[in-house]
């Protein structure tokens, strides 16, 4: 049986779900990895596909064409700024300004690729850059609010979890924002805008599965926490074998739906 824990977002709720994370989690063996890989290979594709929790939640629908906007930059900037806030004890606004300045310097020095956040920021007017800063300030402040009551050791995730499925032209991405050292192992927290939909649970399980796959020993986090501050809701899934199986199944289903979509577009 899969798990899904629902909590209202009180100031102490996140710390409570971290403290009550289960003692043990399942482990994905080599056999599990081979089995998953063969299932993905069975869904043939001529191009590379990337699957994540968002696609699982949206029935395998591919992402829209990506374009930078203040809302799209806020997570990247806010996570980087939160790291600065922790490391240097600076204010949110100062941390974000430093981060944006650093990106601009990188772009000016020719170290950024075209289409990257740094190169997009250089094309913006001052008011537009201020809009980016305002959006990121709100998101970072929200993250500070979320993390302040955490009593366990935590860090900001350096990058999302990625796993390339062997010989299946498929990469899986698991979204993660905070990694907390819980009492019995790591707990991963991801923060999202809006409100959770009916398929938020499967989305979390997909992220949990990718988190386990990217771990060398195949060990998932003991608990995967989805936080929707706008809705004031916390959802958690535990690192059990049933949850991992359900997550893997949904990822494969998304690959099938994705292929159907591509075939219908081509037709």
């Amino acid at each position, binding site marked *: 049986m899969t798990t899904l824990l629902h909590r209202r977002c009180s100031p102490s709720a996140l710390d409570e779900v971290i403290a009550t994370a289960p003692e043990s989690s399942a482990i994905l063996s080599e056999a599990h990895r081979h089995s998953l890989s063969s299932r993905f290979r069975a869904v043939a594709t001529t191009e590379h596909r990337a699957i994540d929790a968002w696609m699982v939640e949206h029935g395998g629908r591919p992402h829209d064409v990506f374009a930078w906007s203040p809302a799209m930059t806020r997570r990247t900037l806010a996570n980087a700024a939160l790291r600065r806030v922790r490391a240097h004890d600076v204010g949110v606004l100062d941390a974000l300004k430093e981060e944006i300045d650093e990106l601009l310097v990188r772009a000016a020095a020719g170290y950024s690729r075209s289409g990257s956040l740094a190169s997009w920021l250089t094309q913006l007017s001052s008011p537009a850059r201020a809009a980016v800063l305002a959006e990121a300030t*709100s998101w970072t402040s929200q993250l500070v*609010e979320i993390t302040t009551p955490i009593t366990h050791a935590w860090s900001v995730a350096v990058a999302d979890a990625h796993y390339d499925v062997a010989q299946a032209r498929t990469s899986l991405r698991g979204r993660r924002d905070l990694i907390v050292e819980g009492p019995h192992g790591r707990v991963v927290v991801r923060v999202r805008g809006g409100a959770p939909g009916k398929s938020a649970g499967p989305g979390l399980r997909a992220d949990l599965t990718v988190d386990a796959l990217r771990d060398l020993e195949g060990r998932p986090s003991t608990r995967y926490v989805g936080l929707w*501050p706008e*809705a004031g809701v916390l959802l958690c899934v535990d690192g059990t074998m049933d949850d991992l199986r359900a997550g893997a199944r949904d990822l494969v289903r998304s690959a099938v739906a994705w292929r159907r979509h591509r075939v219908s577009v081509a037709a």
Partner: protein
Amino acid sequence: MTSLLDTPPLGLLDSIRGNRAKRPRRDLTSAAGLRATLDDELFALWGDAVFDTPLVVRASSLRRGPATALSTHPLAQVRGVLVHQTLRLLSVGAPLERPFDDALGAWRCEVGNNDLLAFVDTLDAEERARLASAVGAHAQTLARALGPLGGRWLPRTGVRASQRLGGGNVIVRDAVDLMVGSTTTSEASVALLDVTTAPLDENAERSMRYHALVQTLRTTTVPLRTSAFSTATGELWSHDVDVALLRRALDELVEAVRGLWSPS
């Protein structure tokens, strides 16, 4: 007569946040009671029925008086959006040299293209100048009143909230223009500010109460104060948030749901 002040006048947010030593303790218990009461009231309306399409309640749903469709006043709508953008820019200390152009640039960056922006592009020079002058005046009033924002106050602009009530049959949506303070301190410190380009009236007061209620439900923490500032008149209304105010907001919300729901 010339009079000199001993201390500089308080900025808008200084006066909303008040004296730190006099703040009440953080209330973490009222939210659960309010939610339960709301669910009971909604259950009394339609029992255990499940709607195909949920009712959506916004601050504007609580307005009284003749309803005016914003689509019939696009200029007023554009002015409101641009003043909101001005607030966002001011919240991060951006200098406003040309408020209209700056706000328009920020808005364009945020939404890309939409009908309202297309409408702005179709304005002739005279209409555009009139709009720019109106936005400039509102922005100046706002900038003068707002004063500098402390970085440690955690200023958040355009804070959205969405709550499902009544077994998912009602979605309560809200957006607060500016929020400062933290829900994690031992005393109440969250202050909500609604900025409007219209003069303050009874509807503004209802919106203030609505913001306080929705934020209480969202964070399970009762905010310290809810306020509204009019850039048309420079007037500020501010209320301490207590259980009586939240109870009143709850009654107004249930009344709004009753107005939206038609038993079939």
